């Protein structure tokens, strides 16, 4: 028989909800960030920081590399080894850095235009090499920094400043492209599904080899305004929530129900030799001769 005091104990011990403390990861004085009200990039960044925290990798061993665009401003806000480079070229810089310092955990933050248009060539070749790095594509289907031009992921029919009568170009599917090019971990998340996103980013970072996470998020200022979404909330609900289906749910749906929806979750995973390790083996073999 327990005493009343013992009965109360478990309740008192119950863990209080504590919000995640971002301050060790965010550079002092750098916030507010430049992203517009309602832009999903901030939500993605928070998921990324929580995922990084879970990996327990030292901040000194994390390098964040980016190109040009809204998403590419991420490194400026975080307290890692950070490199903000040229439009489309983040992966090339990241490749050089990773080969020079293989102990670094390299994360590339890039956008749909940066990764898939101007940087498309580097994107496929990075996937092919399978260097151990994580590529986060903040995919908002538009060029935000230059105020709203069509990107390789702007859906057909949608309006942009360079697609005033509706975009007629077919889109790239970031994940299919990455998988076809040889990436060994391919996933998709959305800013709306923040828990899922944190989890796939964590898995992506723990994966050995090139991991690609296509993150669907919203650009209310341009994409939203041009395409008659009234609020950031509406964008998140219509595009991220209703426009996607998790891999688990998808199994239970008919093909016609999946029509036009993007899959969320880990879409592909394989085991292939990692480039730095292969290079290291080559060095050892050559030196032994």
């Amino acid at each position, binding site marked *: 028989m327990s005493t*009343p005091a013992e009965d109360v104990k478990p*309740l008192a011990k119950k863990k*209080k*909800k*504590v*919000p*995640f403390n971002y301050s060790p990861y965010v550079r002092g004085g750098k*916030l507010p*960030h430049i992203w517009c009200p309602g832009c999903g*990039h901030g939500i993605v960044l928070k998921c990324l920081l929580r995922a990084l925290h879970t990996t327990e990798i030292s901040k000194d061993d994390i390098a964040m590399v980016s190109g040009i665009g809204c998403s590419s401003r991420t490194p400026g806000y975080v307290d890692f080894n950070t490199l903000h480079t040229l439009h489309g070229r983040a992966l090339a810089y990241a490749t050089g850095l990773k080969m020079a310092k293989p102990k670094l955990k390299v994360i590339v933050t890039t956008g749909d235009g940066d990764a898939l248009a101007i940087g498309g060539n580097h994107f496929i070749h990075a996937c092919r090499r399978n260097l151990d790095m994580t590529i986060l594509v903040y995919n908002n289907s538009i060029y935000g920094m230059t105020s709203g031009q069509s990107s390789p992921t702007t859906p057909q029919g949608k309006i942009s400043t360079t697609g005033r009568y509706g975009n007629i170009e077919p889109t790239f599917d970031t994940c299919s492209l990455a998988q076809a090019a040889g990436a060994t971990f391919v996933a998709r998340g959305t800013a709306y599904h923040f828990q899922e996103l944190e989890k796939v980013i964590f898995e992506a970072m723990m994966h050995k080899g090139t991991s690609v996470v296509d993150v669907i998020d919203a650009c209310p200022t341009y994409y939203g305004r041009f395409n008659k979404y009234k609020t950031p909330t509406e964008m998140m609900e219509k595009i991220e929530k209703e426009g996607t289906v998790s891999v688990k749910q998808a199994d239970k749906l008919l093909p016609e129900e999946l029509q036009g929806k993007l899959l969320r979750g880990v879409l592909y995973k394989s085991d292939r030799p990692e480039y730095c390790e292969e290079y290291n083996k080559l060095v050892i073999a050559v030196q032994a001769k």
Partner: protein
Amino acid sequence: MAVAEKRIFRIEIDDRLCKGCNLCVDFCPTNVLTMDGNLVVVKDLDACNGCQLCDNRCPDFAIQVFEE
């Protein structure tokens, strides 16, 4: 034995960081928050259940919920 407990929350809003996007107001399941001009404010703290959806969907690092 029966135990009645009330959880108390503290909501911190950094008005230097809030950009007034309304996401937290819209996604709060218990209607705790509202907009005062371009800034989010707490209108019904008692209704807060500590779910932290406001924090998780805030792009601006502007709002956090602490349990007292």
